[in-house]
């Protein structure tokens, strides 16, 4: 089965707010989050979207 869109990774500052099937990266600071997200964006060829303050998802479109 091919997915048209899917969440490849979740980057969060608060581990208590996220759970589920995609890999989760917990970061301490906002800067660290942005750095990790920028790297993952390039590596996974997905787009980083901000769902809420301190919660980013990488989505393959």
């Amino acid at each position, binding site marked *: 089965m091919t997915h048209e869109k899917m969440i490849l990774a979740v980057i969060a500052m608060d581990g208590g707010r996220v759970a589920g099937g995609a890999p989760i990266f917990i970061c301490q600071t906002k800067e660290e989050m*942005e750095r990790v*997200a*920028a790297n993952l*964006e*390039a590596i996974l*060829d*997905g*787009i*980083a*979207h*901000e769902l809420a303050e301190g919660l*980013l*998802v990488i989505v393959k*479109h």
Partner: protein
Amino acid sequence: MNEYTLPILYGVAAGVLTRLYLLRTDYRQYPTYLHGRTIHIALGAIAAGLGTVAVPAIMEKEFAAITFLALAASQFRDVRNMERNTLNELDQYELVPRGKTYIEGIAIVFEGRNYLVIFVSFLSTLFYLVWNIGAALVATAIGLIAARRFMSGSRLKDIADVQYVKPHFEGVGLYVDNIYIMNIGLPARREEILRYGMGFILTPKNFNARTTIANLGQRQAILHDVSTALGIYRDSGTPALVPLAKRDLNDGRVGIFILPQVEDVEKAKAVIENVPVLESAIRMPKKRRWKRKGGSGDDA
């Protein structure tokens, strides 16, 4: 040499000339490929031959020979397939793909032009044989003009007004005017987008145009044309930098967001205005005849 030699030669020449006239390289960058060009000239010559030979065949009462025109039709349907396949393959490696609707449009045009060649060759030879070379020259000229008119469809500026708007962010949401484009999570990307991005608003001129520019293929064609003409600030591995076109559901306006390498608003506007309206995107809901109130169903 017999009485048909010169008319046939003339007809074939007229047909090939028509094909060459219609086969121009333009900003769509097709057919720039030398071999693609050879293929089209060769097929044009075959089409010209078929159109030409039909005339003497009728005059000699060889009606069975006319049936090979049917063969020609299937032959040129293959041309369409060939174009579609080639462009689909190439499309996978475009930074901004043409989209299937645009490709289908181009393929249809290639098939159609071969029929125009048959038509011009047929008329030229017919006039040559019935009257003289002078009449044939007139027929060729008329054929060329007609082919030219068939060739050029309408442009986006005929159906919509184009207006420049600077894109902006509300939180993480990218907007062109009040049309939401996408969510950009990284501040670095947001800066790049504000630096290089341009926004345009297409306002449809009537209800038919509203449906036409809503077509996803038509929107992709706009993005592709702008990106080809002005370059694109994008690479593989930077998927966030993607030109997009989104629609305002309330009034049917379309917001175009692009990332051109050449930062010239007037040029970008001119390119968008000259994007062809794709045949397969045209919808005419206003052509529908609505049932009158209390009428008996004049609702074709």
